[in-house]
């Protein structure tokens, strides 16, 4: 092969690469980066959608950090939601995955049944159903009544409303369960056999072999689910009717952002809130990756 032919061969793919990427490049610059920068600009302005934006410097950020009690409420609600729903959801997912991995018969059927809620959970239909399951005269209280318990009106009591949303999230443990299951199946079987020959109990095997070997999968699930929970919107929107009530008890950060933007037309303020959400997500991810080497074990 001559030198020129080599150069041509090397150059052609490099141009073709950009052609293949063209749709994505258009989308990235036109629909993601451009709008994101535009909203970064808006976050330093007051903009009511109808007039023109006018520059206010750091005013929006200062207000968010110091003077807005609803920001404090919504951060509290969101963190509480993350702190409860992520561990519970992943706990269930791992527990069921471990049981399913015992080689019992009917695995595909169980797996399908447990996965189904994950698939349906994002729809308006399920959110409306949820309202009725946890209403004062709803399904859950009917069931509790059999045991002689008079349940409260779960969705409309500020002490319990958030738990109904946590339950909705935990109910959808199917997809992390599938990821755990796939991870479990890749664990080398001979390790377990060697361990049982050495007399390790199943419990010891779980904590000494399964969990450490599974840490990359756990790590992945924790990061993905945490980011997802920080961004959660639709369940709170439908279950609370968009209000975040009662008394801000389901006022997720994204719901507050939406209210500020579209309820009260404060686009600049909402843009600042959105950018702080980005920073929070970046921070979570950064912390996860920095601490990764402390507890995540890779073979190679």
């Amino acid at each position: 092969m001559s030198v020129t032919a080599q150069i041509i061969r090397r150059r052609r793919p490099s141009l073709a690469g950009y052609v293949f990427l063209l749709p994505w490049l258009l989308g990235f610059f036109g629909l993601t980066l451009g709008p994101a920068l535009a909203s970064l600009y808006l976050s330093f302005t007051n903009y009511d959608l109808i007039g023109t934006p006018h520059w206010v410097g750091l005013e929006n950020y200062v207000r968010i950090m110091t003077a807005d009690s609803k920001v404090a409420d919504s951060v509290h609600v969101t963190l509480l939601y993350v702190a409860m729903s992520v561990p519970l959801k992943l706990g269930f997912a791992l527990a069921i995955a471990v049981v399913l991995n015992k080689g019992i018969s009917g695995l595909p059927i169980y797996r399908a049944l447990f996965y189904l809620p994950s698939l349906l959970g994002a729809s308006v239909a399920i959110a409306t159903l949820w309202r009725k399951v946890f209403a004062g005269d709803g399904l859950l209280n009917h069931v509790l009544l059999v045991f002689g318990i008079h349940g409260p009106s779960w969705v409309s009591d500020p002490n319990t409303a958030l738990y109904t949303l946590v339950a909705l999230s935990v109910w959808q443990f199917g997809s992390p369960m599938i990821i755990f299951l796939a991870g479990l199946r890749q664990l080398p079987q001979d390790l377990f056999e060697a361990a049982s020959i050495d007399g390790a109990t199943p419990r010891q095997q779980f904590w000494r072999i399964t969990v450490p070997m599974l840490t990359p999968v756990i790590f992945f699930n924790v990061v993905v689910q945490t980011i997802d929970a920080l961004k959660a919107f639709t369940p709170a929107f439908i279950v609370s009717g968009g209000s975040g009530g009662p008394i801000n008890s389901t006022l997720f950060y994204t719901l507050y952002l939406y209210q500020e933007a579209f309820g009260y037309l404060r686009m600049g303020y909402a843009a600042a809130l959105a950018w702080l959400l980005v920073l929070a997500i970046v921070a979570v991810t950064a912390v996860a990756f920095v601490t990764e080497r402390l507890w995540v074990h890779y073979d190679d």
Partner: protein
Amino acid sequence: MIERARRPWPRSLAYHIVLCAASLVMLYPLLWMFASSLKPNAEIFETFSLFPEHWDFSAYSRGWNGLQVSFGQFFWNSLLISMLSVTGNLISCSLAAYAVSRMRFPGRNICFSLMLMTLMIPYQVTLVPQYILFLNLDWVNSFLPLVVPKFMAVDAFFIFLLTQFFRGLPRELDEAAVMDGCGPWRIYWKIILPLSVPALATAAIFTFIFTWDDFFGPLIYLSDVENFTVQLGLRGFLDSGGQSDWGAMFAMAVLTLLPVLALFVFFQRLLIQGIATTGMKR
């Protein structure tokens, strides 16, 4: 396998009992909703039974025609938007995934990192500027703002899914093709895509389901009732009459879940594999 033979049957039975009970608890709300759609309204909140005392199918016709535009139109709209989104995602995401997984060019790794970064950006950040952009293009109140972005690979998740799959295909295939004088386009069309049908099908099914369930996009961009998707129709129904006619509300809710349910029944294996493969490696 040795392990299974060794396990005493009582323990296996115990597992089955636990799993059955757990799946019953999980699915009960869904079954109850379905049963409620077949009960007269007065009966819905009287019992938690899954078997209607009085069978009543009228909720379906009440719900279907409960708004000024019938749910048939909403289903057609949702179907059209979903199918277009599937087409768009398959084309644009497979192109992008092919570029970052099988080709060499300067900036490739940067592009891939940017794709992964867009996975984390909450859509609220781009919402308003995007709206203003589509408005100036005079696209608002058509399906274009919901569909055209899919042709620009904005769903980075699917690029990621396909990249993972493409990377797993043996390199020797490309090299052999290059020897035969194939350019990147022919490799993409003739070799990579045909080998990737399972991954493409997975991407297609997930795109369909995500688009079908999308509530926020249609809420912002579609204002004409004739253009409503099923999710908007359901919400609209909840607003006007659904609160006092839960039978009809649940009947329509059941119908909106059916397409997703059907995909699940037919393509369960692909869906589960899709999650397992993208989930394993980050």
